[in-house]
Each structure stands twice: as C-alpha cells, then as structure tokens.
C-alpha cells in the first residue's frame, strides 16, 4: 500500500446530439442559448473540474434520406462558444473538438493560439478526423480524403500546427517606445512545412500563447487512433466504461508511449462516463432504468435497430419482436453522419445474436435496444459513485473521467454538489485550483520553444 493515491481528473462534456441527452425531461433547457453554456461551465468550475469539453459534427445526421429528428439537433460553433466562456470563467479548461479534414492548419492554429491568449492559457484541442463525402458536401473540397489517409492527414495537420505554434519563441515583442522597436525579430513567426498533405510557408501571425500550445486530445479507438494518441496527444478521450476493458485499454495505450520516447504520465486516459445519482443505490438503479427508457423511446429503438438492419423498419412495432428479415449488407448505409454505424462490421451476425438475446430474455425491440445500448457508467448513491470512480482510477482503468450528463444544462449540478465533496474528502480531487492554465490542472509540462517531442516532458517552463 505504499503507492500514493492518484489524483483524479474530471471534465464536463456538454450534452451532445445523441440519445444520451434527454431533451424531453421537464428540466431540459436549450442546447443553443448561451445561458445554458454559462450554467454548465460555472457548475464545472465551481466543482474545480479540469475542463469543459465540446464535441462537434459538421453535417446534421440523416437516416433514410432525411435529417434525423429524434435527438437534439444543432449546436453552436465550437471556437466561438469557448471564447465567450473564457469571459465567464477564470480557471476552467476549454476543450474544443476540431476536425482535421475540413480545416486548414494556419487557420486552426491561429484560432487555438487566439483562444489560448483570450483565456489566459486554458485551451485544448480534441483532434478528430472525418473522411466521409457526406460531410464534405458542406465544404469547398468535398469528399477529397480517402479513408486510409485520414490519420496521416491528422498527424501532419497536428505536426504543422505545432510548427506554427512554435514559430514564436515568446520573447519577440519588445514594444520599446524609445527605440521604436516593436519586434525583436523581423522574421518572427517564419515557418516552412513541406509534406504530403500540406505544402505551406510564410509567417504565423499570433505570438506565442500562455500555454505555448493547446493541450492535445485524441478520441479515436482504432489501432491508428491509439498510436496517434501515444505519439502526439496529451490526453485520450476513450469510451471504455467497464473496469476490465478500461484496464486493458489503459495498459495497451500507456505501453505504446515508450515507442515514442515518452513516459506513461505524459498521456492521460480520460474515458467518457455517464452517471445517475440517487439517495440510495436502489433509488439510483430505479432512476437509471427510467432514464434509459427516456433515452430509448419506441421510435428511437426502431431507428437504432436500423443501424444494424440497414433498412427501413418503420413498419415494425417497437414493443413487438425483432424483425425476421436479415440486414441489408451494403456500402450504402441508411444512417449518415454517425460514427457508430461503422462498428457493426458483420450486421448479419449481430442480428442473429440479438434475435437470440431477445428470445431468451423475452425482450421487445425497445427492451433489446435499452439493454444492449450504453448503460450508465456510474449508478448509485453519491458515496457509491465516489468510491467507484476512485476505484477505477486507483486500479489504473483511467486517470479520470469526462462526465456526460443527460440533462442540459443542470445535469452536472448534483454531481458537483454531492460527489465532488466526497472525492475531496478522500484526498483524491483538488479542493481548489493550484495553477491558472489547463496544463497546470492536468499536470502536463509547458512546452518550451521547439521542444524535441521525444523529451517534451522535461519541464522547460522557465523558457516559455
């Protein structure tokens, strides 16, 4: 028992555009109005969370050729919301998901560097890729990127952005009125990048920001995604919610770091987690079942079954048995703009397995979707949830969690009020912020000027 307790990192994911978010609840507010974001961010900051997290998708989801209408639809622009939230918070980190396929490094780098300046060093970038021509229809280039090249573009995009961030050392602005020297260096911001995806040169126009570079997140789960995280990211946003899966993922990803000359503590593993709290464990369990039924209406159950069957199932009764027809196996999918439909690699086998499950348990379509879908990660009294979260982290299944409440904007409040104090009592979560930047909160080194990425952990803070 000589091992010291790990400190837990906690983040708040603004409820997203999927059926985890229960919009039909009387307590559910707007997903667009700024007041919702302010409430959510202030709750997270009151609870001393590390950061707030915004997801993004660049095309509204469609199913069966029309916009999917059963979940929350629409969201504001990521950078714009984060910059505004910097005005109503002081310490909370601000993480934005920004796509490396339908953006360009110069523009994204100046947006993150600007956000980092405007927030006093609180910015983070969740780098995601996208390859579908469907999303591309909203952009100048259309669907230009072959699937197999999406990570190579993402890596080069990030490397290029780092070159831009590092093109300013941090001491160039002299602003000496007497001698009339504003810049020490006439070539401040100069860069040249020649690569497979980007061939750019010139001068970056945002001076070095408080963190030097935003904190980098990676969210993919594939082999390529894991390697990308191990080589380039400061934190990984994963989806493994059981202890065993979490430990396996944790061990796997952390073991990859050595290949890139990095130490295990240079990459934080922060899975997404949902939660339901009750006064007692039993009450929480009942509430959790109720929330699952809210999340999976009959109509939603049919639509989710269509992800696997890949055909119109609107004629089926959600309270009845599963369809006896087989899924349509095709490159064309009934659902577009959704990542998870790619998970069903053998839909015919999944359908067979689900039919067996439903028969064995006497499940209707809706029961099946409720029971095979994502259950809440943590369910129980505040004491139980605090214990479980701590157990996960101390058992190296995670370094903390990105919590996804199901109610906007107040879903985080009970966690902040009831669970966080218990984690603080256990001595595993901060009672106040010690630093001002997100890197401080996450215990990450501040990059100095042009650090060798392989030794980026050696704190060069004095130089930055």
């Amino acid at each position, binding site marked *: 028992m000589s091992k010291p307790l790990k400190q837990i990192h906690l983040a708040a994911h603004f409820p997203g555009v999927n059926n985890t978010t229960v919009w039909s609840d009387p307590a559910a507010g707007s997903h667009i109005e700024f007041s919702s974001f302010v409430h959510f961010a202030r709750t997270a900051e009151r609870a001393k969370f590390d950061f707030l997290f915004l997801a993004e998708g660049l095309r509204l989801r469609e199913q069966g050729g029309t916009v999917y209408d059963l979940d929350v639809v*629409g969201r504001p622009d990521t950078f714009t919301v984060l910059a505004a939230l910097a005005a109503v918070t002081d310490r909370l980190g601000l993480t934005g998901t920004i796509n490396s396929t339908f953006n360009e490094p110069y523009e994204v780098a100046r947006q993150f560097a600007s956000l980092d300046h405007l927030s006093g060093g609180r910015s983070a970038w969740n780098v995601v890729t996208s390859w579908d021509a469907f999303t591309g229809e909203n952009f100048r280039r259309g669907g230009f990127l072959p699937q197999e090249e999406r990570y190579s573009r993402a890596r080069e995009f990030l490397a290029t952005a780092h070159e831009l961030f590092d093109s300013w050392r941090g001491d160039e602005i002299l602003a000496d009125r007497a001698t009339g020297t504003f810049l020490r260096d006439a070539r401040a911001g100069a860069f040249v990048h020649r690569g497979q995806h980007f061939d*750019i040169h010139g001068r970056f126009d945002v001076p070095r920001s408080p963190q030097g570079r935003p904190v980098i997140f990676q969210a993919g789960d594939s082999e390529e995604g894991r390697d990308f995280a191990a080589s380039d990211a400061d934190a990984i946003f994963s989806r493994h919610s059981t202890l065993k899966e979490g430990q396996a993922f944790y061990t796997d990803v952390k073991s990859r770091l050595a290949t890139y000359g990095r130490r295990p503590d240079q990459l934080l593993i922060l899975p997404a987690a949902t939660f339901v709290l009750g006064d007692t464990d039993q009450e929480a369990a009942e509430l959790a079942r109720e929330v699952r039924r809210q999340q999976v209406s009959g109509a939603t159950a049919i639509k989710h079954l269509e992800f696997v069957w890949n055909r119109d199932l609107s004629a089926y009764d959600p309270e009845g048995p599963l369809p006896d027809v087989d899924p349509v196996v095709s490159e064309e999918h009934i659902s577009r703009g959704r990542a998870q439909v790619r998970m069903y690699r053998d839909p015919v086998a999944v359908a067979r397995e689900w039919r067996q499950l439903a028969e064995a348990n006497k499940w209707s379509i809706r029961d099946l979707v409720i029971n095979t879908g994502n259950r809440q990660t943590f369910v129980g009294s505040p004491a139980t949830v605090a214990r479980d979260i701590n157990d996960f982290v101390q058992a190296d299944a995670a370094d903390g969690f990105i919590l996804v409440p199901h109610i906007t904007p107040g879903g985080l409040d009970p966690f902040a009020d009831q669970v966080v104090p218990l984690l603080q009592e256990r001595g595993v979560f901060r009672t106040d912020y010690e630093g001002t930047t997100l890197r401080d909160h996450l215990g990450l080194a501040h990059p100095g000027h042009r650090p060798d990425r392989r030794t980026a952990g050696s704190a060069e803070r004095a130089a930055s």
Partner: protein
Amino acid sequence: MSSTPPAHLHLAVALDGTGWHPASWREPAARPRDLFTAGYWTDLITEAERGLLDFVTIEDGLGPQSDHPWAADERTDRVRGRLDAVLIASRVAPLTRHIGLVPTVVATHTEPFHISKAIATLDHISGGRAGLRVRITARQDEAAHFGRRTIRRIDSLGTPYAQEVITELFDEAADHVEVVRRLWDSWEDDAEIRDAATGRFIDRDKLHHIGFEGRFFSVKGPSITPRPPQGQPPVTALAHGTVPYRLLARQADIGYVTPHDTAQARAIVAEIRAEQQAAGRAGQTLHVFGDLLVLLDDSRAEAEARRDRLDALAGEPYTGDAPVFTGTARQLADVLEESAEQGLSGFRLRPAVAGHDLPRITRDLVPELQRRRRFRDAYGSGTLRGLLGLARPANRYSAAVA
C-alpha cells in the same frame, strides 16, 4: 417635408491593434504589450459602448500586417501579429450588452460553412449583436499560408490584369456571402419543436438544404447551427471602386467608402445606388458609411502637432485609403453633418491612437452630436439590426413555401 429634423447619424469605430496610425503604439496612451490580452479588447469595446456607438469592427487578416498591399514586409518598428477577430468579438460579447460586434472575415481562404456558424453563434451569444465585415486578400504570402491556391501576383492595381484578379476574388466573396446567408436561413425560426408526443426534437420540414452550386464551390447545408436571433446578421464591406461596390450592391447591409471630398461622396453614393438597382435590391436598406481616420484634441493645432509627432516617429507622413481628420470634436461633427448631406448615413471612424482617440469619440464627439440632435441619447433596440434601422428579415425558405 423641410421641417423633418435630420436623421440620427450612425457611428461605428474600427479597431485595429493600438490604432490606425503606424506609430500609434509608441504613444503614451497606447498599450502595445496588452494587445494579446482579453482585457485590452474588453476595455476598448466597453469604452465604445459607453459612447452608445452602433458597433465596432475588428480588423483581421490571414497573415501579419504589412505596409505593402500585396505582400508581407519585414518591419520591426510597427505592430505585427494579432488575434482572430471572431474570437475577440465572442470573448467580449458576454461583457457587453448593447453594442454591435462586427469582426472581419477573409472570404478568400475560409470555408463559408465555418464562417456562417461562427457568426450565427456570435449572434446567439450576444443576443443579436453580431455582424461581419467581409474582405478578400490578394496577398501571395497569405495564399502560401494555405497552399491550396495560387493568387497571381499583382504589382499595380491599375492594370487590366490586376482588375481581372480582383474581380474574380470579389465574385468569389459574393458567393461566399451568399452561402453564409443561405445557411443562416437553413433553419426556420420555429424548427425546434420538442414534441414529446411524437418524440421529434425538430420539424425537419423546417430545415433546408441550401444546394448552392457556384463557380468556386458548392455547399449542401443545412447549417449545424440554428438561425441566429437577428435572422440575418448585417454584412458589411469596405469598398474603393466599382468592383467592390458591386459586392455591396449584391450582398451588403453596410458599405464603408472613402471619399475625400463632398463631390466624391456624392458620386460614390450614386454609383452604389445604381449598382444596387441593377442587382435588384433597390427597395432594401443599404447603408453607405464614410470611413475617416481621426485625430481628436482640444484644438486643431494640438491635433496637428500630434499628427506631426506620430508622422515623425513613423518616419514618413501617414497616407492611407481613408481621409484623415485632424481637429476638435466640434469640427469633426461639422464634417460629418456635411458629409451626411451627400447621402452617407453613418461613419466608421478609425482612431489614429485607440487609447486616445476612441475616448475622444465617445466623450467629446458623441455629446456634441447629441447636442445637435444627430445621435441617440440611449440605446433603444437590443439588436444590431435594430440599431441600424433594419427590420428582421423573413426567412427565404419559409417565404418560398408560403
């Protein structure tokens, strides 16, 4: 009709670094070391709001500032470097309540889809106070920052060849704005229904593909962001000739122009009105604002002395696209009133030194115009369109159905 009092003037301030004079950063009132902080921009914009101004614009580009119109320079004696204007505007939005926020966006290298949702979001955050100032760039160095296209080199604006390049960039900008505007309308106002009975969050018949297909790009839509509170945040652009006047005529709510005398002002307004008619928008409000760089002091001699001092520090007399006004607030009020008679409905003032001339605008010029009953005594409308006398427009897609 002759008894109708003259209309209120519209007043905006153009913010750019420490001010528009290249030596502005060396003045005692300047804060050059704070340029990259939120506090600096908050202070400037709240000062503008104290003066009840219609809006501020925030300059931006996709490369460092340059004294050269078509390329980068390597000067070290001027402010170089800046923050993204949309993010500055959104950072300040929650800290202000009335003033319009109009960041600059460059159409040439950006995605209209991203710009549309960013300005829509700024509008949501600010409760209907967003606008945008669209510009093009013909700088080769900025094109090299993106590496997606080459902009042909321009040496002098006068050649037919340069006009061809510029015309193409403005045509593209017009398409860019068209897409931005269609995306703002791609959600009808009441698309979000939250109908518990049917389980539908939106009425998808009220979301629209925009189906834009143009010479330069195609965009499908709909936007991922619901229609902004103003419906259509005002689109503005600076224009120095026929080609950009056409952009104003086709797409803008406000044009900034730079006449150097009253005859020129009349001629420019006439040309823009003719283009507006040709573009089929004769019935719509298109404000034409005069741009002026201002040095304001208690006496003209003082202002001229300050200009001389700044010019000496810069090493050369300042010349720019816009006329330079040097004098007192009362004298400036005279100039504005006279220019307004030529058909200008407002002015965008460029403070030579932000830390000096902006407070002179808000504390001297505004009270002077109020005494003359040419400027508001309090903010009335909550939205930027409201301040500008622009009605909230119908949605082009719901109008088509009706």
